[in-house]
């Protein structure tokens, strides 16, 4: 199913229409085509199959990140990366 953990925007490349986001310590590049005009550094966004889909409030983001932290902290970097990506995997249904 297509759920996702809030990610923080750490850099923006307006020309490439991408941003680097930090999802609980895991950094990756995502598309910002759909929130191009609104997104700012430091925003929390929800990622859907590699694209930032919406910006969410900081308070809400931090609360839901807290829920994930405990277990993710027990994982190695590689496992964490996989778990985070898998949590967003989607068939489009």
């Amino acid at each position, binding site marked *: 199913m297509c759920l996702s953990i809030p990610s923080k925007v750490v850099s923006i490349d307006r020309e490439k229409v991408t941003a680097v986001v930090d999802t609980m310590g895991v950094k990756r590049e995502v598309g910002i085509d*759909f929130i191009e005009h609104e997104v700012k550094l430091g925003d929390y966004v929800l990622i859907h199959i*590699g694209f930032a889909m*919406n910006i969410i409030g900081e308070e809400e983001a931090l609360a839901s990140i807290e829920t994930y932290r405990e277990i993710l902290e027990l994982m190695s970097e590689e496992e964490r990366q996989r778990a985070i990506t898998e*949590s967003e*995997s*989607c068939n489009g249904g």
Partner: protein
Amino acid sequence: MRKLQLKELYERFRDPATIKALAKLIEKEARSLEEPLNIMEVCGGHTHTIMKYGLKQLLPDSIRFVHGPGCPVCIMPKERIDHAYILSKEEGVILATLGDMIKVPGSRGSLQKARREGADIRFVYSPLDVLKIARENPDKKVIFFAIGFETTTPMSAALLEHAIKEGLENLLLHVNHVTVPEVMQELIDSRDEHIDSYNNKIDAFIGPSHVSVIAGAKIYRRFPQRYGRPVVVSGFEPVDVMEGVLMLVRQFVEGRCELEIQYRRSVTMEGNTSAQKMIDRYFCKRELFKWRGLGNIPHSALRLRDEYARYDAERVYADILPLEEIEDHKLCICGDILRGMAEPTECMVFGTACKPSNPLGSCMVSSEGACAAYYKYGDLIGG
């Protein structure tokens, strides 16, 4: 294993006490219903939630779920899976796709089989990964086998936009994007014709939140207005689904017929207009699209606009892609299941000849398929 652990995290959003409290409220309100209420959850993700948390069992007998066709893998006809299979076997082609697609058998076998036979098939989490594959393999053609409802369509469009901007000439799309309202409409139309011969009917719909994050809740307006079927756009957590059911029951009790949003956190009437524009820029409606088990449905799918024909694998490779229709396995009743006319347990080979490890039909392949959900959470069924 890790995936399971991460899933356990979500349990906290799935508070049993809240679910029970909602079930009680529904029960109370449902006493005023004059007739049983048949609610179709359109999306396979909802079917999964309903089965996994045994929501069916928590509800009174007067509330029935009818499982809908919203599983993009389940509705992919064999001939299109064959297209993917054939393309993957072409000299110099890398085929990339999302999700469970790789396991679904076409008439020649699954993509998994093609891969064992030497085809270069990549499973990606994001269409953006395809961009990277295309960059790294300039001497190959990289074909993205694009699947999904409105949830994944804008990302396929964005993939093409990024590729064009970068000047990547070796990236193509095989487009299988389908749309939710058209198939809902088809289900209502086809039912109204034979309404008496079916056990089930659809009185109301639960629409998937992720589709409306993009397309807006507005795509369902016609259902309450023209067809007398209320729609509630709902999230995927069990609490969301239960609240969606409660909202529908209240509508019936109060004699309303409306479009409502349960998942107000990220769904609006309008949706994400940038994403909608992106879809429009690159895609247009197909006249007809064949859905597995449901047949041809007008305007229910998208294709690339003519301006982008050179990126369209269906057109570029037209001479090797057969168009003949292929029948499904004789015993498979996926079609009836996708129409909400039968339950997986009514299939003669359910759980015996057909299992997730050896699926005869597509509903057993995807984790969003009704048969797979019934198989996995079967011990909850009954009662």
